[in-house]
């Protein structure tokens, strides 16, 4: 490593920016340890500054405008970045986020309670509106299902009426109720009316409640005779195709 030695002329060259980096660092260190040299250096700097001013050239005004537009528009931006980067901003943002999550969880919980209450109310209203006992409905669906396994739906209430009559229930009033709840024939009573009930044992899997009058419907029924396999029943606007 080169050993530096302070020499006359170093101060002048340092003030003029004429020293190489390593020597500059050495001279600066040396300078900081000697008060007299510091004073001499300050005097040299002062005179060089005076010379630079004497040799100054007024720059065009557009230069200043360019600098101002750059640093002050950039300054606003950096100020914004400073705010965003501050720990207070981050803490406030975290609090807002947690608050928002808590508020949404509370809303979700309230909504869940409301939905549950609405379902319960709806179920209670449904059960209250039934024209006969709920257990009779279960029996009726099982009866209709067994009848339709023997013979496909004939687009009438044959099995339904048979059940209601066997139970001594009012046929006209109860068929009106079933019709009102999309039970326009035996198979619709089985598929649609049973869907109204909240209890799982009334559900029929993925069968979508639809009316024969809504359009095409393909109803798959189980074999109706010992030799028969799957029977496809195509219904369009109330007409039946095999």
């Amino acid at each position, binding site marked *: 490593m080169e050993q530096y030695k302070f020499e006359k002329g170093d101060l002048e060259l340092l003030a003029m920016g004429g020293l190489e980096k390593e020597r500059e660092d050495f001279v600066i260190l040396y300078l900081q340890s000697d008060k007299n040299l510091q004073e001499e250096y300050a005097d040299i700097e002062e005179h060089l500054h005076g010379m630079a001013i*004497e040799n100054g050239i007024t720059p065009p005004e557009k230069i200043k405008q360019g600098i101002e537009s750059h*640093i002050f528009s950039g300054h606003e931006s950096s100020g914004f970045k400073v705010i965003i980067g501050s720990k207070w901003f981050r803490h406030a943002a975290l609090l807002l986020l947690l608050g928002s999550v808590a508020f949404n969880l509370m809303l979700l919980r309230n909504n869940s309670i409301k939905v549950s209450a609405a379902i319960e109310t709806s179920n209670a209203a449904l059960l209250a509106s039934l024209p006969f006992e709920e257990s009779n409905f279960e029996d009726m669906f099982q009866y209709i299902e067994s009848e339709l396994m023997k013979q496909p739906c004939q687009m009438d209430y044959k099995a339904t009426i048979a059940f209601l009559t066997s139970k001594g229930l009012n046929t006209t009033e109860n068929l009106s109720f079933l019709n009102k709840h999309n039970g326009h024939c035996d198979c619709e009573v089985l598929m649609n009316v049973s869907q109204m009930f909240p209890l799982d044992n009334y559900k029929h899997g993925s069968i979508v409640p639809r009316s024969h009058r809504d359009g095409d419907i393909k109803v798959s029924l189980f074999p109706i005779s010992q030799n028969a396999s799957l029977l496809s029943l195509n219904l369009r606007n109330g007409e039946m195709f095999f």
Partner: protein
Amino acid sequence: MTLFPKKINIEEVNLVALLKNKDETGFQILYQNYSSAIYGIIIRMLRSEDEASDMMQEVFIKIWNKIDSYDHRKGKLFTWMSNLTRNLVIDRIRSADYKNHNLKIFVRDDNVRVVDKEHQSKLKIDAIGLKGLVSDLKPDLRVLIQKIYFEGFTQADLADELGIPLGTLKTRVRAAIKALRKQFD
């Protein structure tokens, strides 16, 4: 004639504090007090008004952004600014745009016309000589100041350029600055 015309009086430590706080007033004072001196250095190094304008903006933006790295224990603000300016200009000269140039291109006789501050924009900048008290120095001393201070030569580059030993160069530089200080005093 005052030594520092149009200068806004402010303690350097206060100006630096304003600049470090990114205070616009600090910038206005800085520009008012130092822009001409800095531009004088830049335009003597680059010889082109367009290039000098771009460089001037780059220099002041750098000063604004790097003011935190200024250490008053290492020297006055203007010394730091002028060294930063020379380094930036030298970087530009050595950049791709200037790859066909080198510092020696800019060595020329300083015995040329003086630029009028008020009309400098109308002048073609082929060469800008030194003015003021430095121009009264003996040519062999004056050229040292011009090449190092206004053209960015290092001591080694200049000693090589002039074909003199480093020690001799230092002695001459010291003599040149001594003569300059004498002129001002």
